């Protein structure tokens, strides 16, 4: 699609635009949704589109073009131009990156076997059967396969191409109404795909969760399963964008250089993570993606930036464009040195939370939030797991990070409906987490 990109760039220049970014996509996505041990719907999406960003005298505009005929492209550019006339300039706009750049192939991001995969239903059956073998009665979930091609051309000498694949599954297993478990697996190459482990984990948690009793409230040491902690970090990823901070959606506002987490907590965004579900070779301006340390040993080091925001704050881009809004690619919480068993043995009386959903903030700048454990929840007493239900985590995001006391040594890469930005996290033990419940 570079020919389309070239044409758009040429026409945009003729019309007098300054910075221009043309990002074209060709995507093929396939989905199999299942519930009650059977497939509810199978889907296929085919899409060709161009995301276009233009600037003229600090006035910026963007659109997506799906009709790629020359006349529609010319009409779209003229519409943008006429709409921008008379608009006030964005005074804090400082341009896009200067290319060209060199790009390296990132391991485990493309696999022809996924492109050629004819029929993924056998993986769904594998996951369902694994969950049933563990004792589940009903299994639901979703499987995706992805094949994406990305073509980037900018007015600053960037021409870049990336091709990626992926396959992922999310499985939820039920025994009764109140007993369920969840497992996921997201990878970029077929040979690493393990739908059975996702099904098995879902089934196993459901089995352990049988006959839950009403949970307690108060302050508890909590072991967060990677699925649960990934949810919190995925919400937090938005708050690491400088744009979110300026707009009043981040507890990290005015905290650069300050301690915001326990010493053992190091959180990064890794755009070029091998086998990462959010991995790309370059950001929306063509800057090669890289690793950015957000929190290092508990100290807040950096917001995620694009070139314009970086220049505004007199620093370098972190290769996280989003031209308007920088965003994370793959959030990684560095592991610690606890085995899973050691982590559980640290807890004399606490709670193990396997999954959460519906994380909502009372106040974004303060970081106050609550989230609801779903699937198996367990009271942990001297190594024993006792199933409980109906509790809520009601706390503050910064306090949770400050109270991390132990981290597992294995990373789990999580991406599903509730974890939009992919997160790699170990098991995490947090002390004194606020737990509430309905009292009527």
């Amino acid at each position, binding site marked *: 699609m570079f020919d389309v990109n070239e044409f758009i760039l040429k026409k945009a220049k003729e019309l007098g635009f300054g910075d221009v970014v043309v990002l074209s996509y060709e995507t093929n996505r396939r989905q199999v949704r299942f519930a009650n041990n059977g497939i509810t719907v199978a889907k296929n999406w085919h899409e060709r589109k161009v995301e276009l960003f233009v600037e003229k005298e600090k006035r910026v505009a963007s659109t997506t073009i799906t009709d790629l005929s020359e006349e529609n492209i010319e009409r779209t550019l003229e519409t943008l131009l006429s709409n921008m006339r008379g608009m006030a300039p964005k005074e804090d706009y400082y341009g896009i990156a200067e290319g060209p750049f060199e790009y390296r192939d990132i391991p485990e991001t493309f696999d022809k076997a996924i492109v050629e995969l004819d029929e993924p239903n056998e993986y769904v059956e594998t996951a369902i059967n694994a969950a049933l073998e563990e004792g589940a009665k009903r299994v639901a979930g979703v499987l995706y396969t992805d094949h994406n091609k990305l073509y980037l051309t900018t007015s600053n000498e960037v021409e870049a191409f990336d091709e990626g694949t992926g396959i992922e599954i999310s499985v939820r297993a039920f025994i009764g109404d109140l007993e369920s478990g969840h497992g996921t697996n997201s990878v970029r190459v077929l040979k690493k795909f393990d739908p059975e482990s996702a099904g098995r984990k879902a089934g196993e948690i459901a089995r352990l969760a049988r006959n839950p009793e009403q949970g307690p409230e108060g302050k508890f040491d909590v072991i967060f399963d990677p699925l649960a902690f990934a949810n919190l970090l995925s919400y937090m990823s938005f708050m690491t964008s400088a744009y979110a901070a300026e707009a009043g959606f981040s507890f990290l506002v005015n905290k650069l250089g300050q301690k915001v987490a326990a010493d053992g907590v190091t959180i990064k965004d890794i755009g070029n993570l091998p086998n990462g579900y959010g991995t790309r070779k370059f950001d929306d301006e063509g800057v090669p993606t890289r690793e950015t340390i957000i929190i290092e040993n508990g100290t807040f080091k950096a917001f995620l930036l694009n070139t314009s925001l970086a220049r505004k704050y007199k620093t370098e881009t972190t290769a996280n464009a989003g031209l308007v809004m920088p965003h994370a690619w793959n959030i990684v919480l560095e592991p610690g040195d606890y085995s899973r068993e050691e982590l559980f043995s640290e807890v004399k009386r606490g709670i193990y939370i396997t999954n959460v959903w519906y994380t909502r903030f*009372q106040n*974004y700048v303060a970081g106050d939030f609550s989230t609801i454990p779903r699937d198996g929840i367990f009271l942990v007493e001297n190594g024993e797991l006792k199933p409980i239900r*109906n509790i809520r985590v009601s706390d503050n995001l910064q306090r949770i990070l400050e109270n991390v006391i132990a981290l597992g040594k294995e990373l789990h890469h999580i991406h599903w409906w509730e974890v939009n930005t992919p997160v790699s996290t170990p098991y995490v033990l947090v002390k004194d987490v606020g737990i509430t419940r309905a009292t009527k």
Partner: protein
Amino acid sequence: MHELVEFAVEKALELGADYAEARFEEKSGTSLAMKNGNPEGLEVLADRGIGIRVLVNGGMGFASTNVLTKESVAEAVKKAVKLAKAASKVRNEPIRFSEEDFHEVYYEVRMRKDFRDVSPEEKLELLKKVEEEVKATGVNVPMRYLMYSDWMWHKILAHSDGAFVESYIPRVSLTYNLVVFENGQMEQAPFVQRAFSGGLELLEKDEPWKWAVKDVQALKRLIYEGQKPPEGKVDLVISPEVAGIAVHESVGHPYEADRIFGREAAQAGESFVKPDMLGERIGSDVVTVIEDPTIPNSWGFYLYDDEGVKARPRYLIRNGIITEFLTNREYAYKLGQRSNASARAINYNREPIVRMANTYLAPGDYSFEELIEDVKLGVYMVSFNEWNIDDRRYQQRYIGREAYLIENGELKHPVKRPILEITTRALWSSVDAVGKDVEMFPGTCGKGEPGQGVPVWMGGAHARLRDIPLRRP
């Protein structure tokens, strides 16, 4: 485009589909953002494509494309049929659809002030007006994020059971996040939205800047005068805004039939409601909850759903009794009923699933003064920030943003963050009186995989809850 839609349906039948449905959608509009007084740029929305859904041997397949040529659409149809065939092999029982009366209809929502004729510059003035009015209050609001958006939503739906529905529905919306910082303390009104189906005149008449001003003034007062809310059992009066989120989360969602039958189990969850709970008491007899897509100019407005079924008001709870679930054709068939037109899709590339539209607590006969006059000790919760509910829609929590103490029948000082954490049955059983004036508030309802955020209104009348265990942060 009509020919392409018909072509898709015919082609699917030719390839062996038992049922075929094609939906063309086009959205065109603009959005503008302003961050701390800086215009953030203009986004022009121009999106169109076609989605095809088929049943083959009781299996369901869906495919979409935004390349609107016969070849590309034929390819999508082929994929949908192939996927449906493969899916039918991994099903315990075939999918069947309810019998319905279908129509050939065209409808549109007229705009008095057509936003397509208004320049982005003039639309930006709406955001500037919010900025100016907020600044004029003298309240310190260091973070201000404002967003305007409009779009015309054009749909053409046809299917092999005989529906042909074309509609044009314009939508306008203004959203703000305002952070008030006074006296070393900070309070926030995030994602507050004003939104309608119709022309720009609706937003202008609504005067969103007045809502913004009311919010920042209330937050300032909360900072200076706010005290701890009472704890323990008190009476609670909830506003139409709070009643709205509560009916949406704890009545609308658990009454969605696809959720009741487990189709949404892996994502949005299941429901505490079971099919045999129709006719069961869930609230006091002053509680009636209505779901109505047909309210003129509402944010969740439609007259025909995305399966071509004619919309009507649905009584989910009547006088405290569960009376109706939200259904599409698949789940109406399972229940042995007719569909009540709840199938909605957010775009051409999404399947229609069971959704709400405009959900509200029906009015009673109390004035606001009557609701509070015999409250000895209580709280009036006007607006909320944090809220959530479990995935069976039973354990929920709402935290007040603007809220006041009620003492001996009078409103007193603001209270900070009163927390209502309660079960669905306790919530609706505790209502002893409902106000007579209805107000509605917009929202975006999330569900589906991949996610589908659909426009909805939520609201109703004020309600008084007796003996509620309130919490403090």
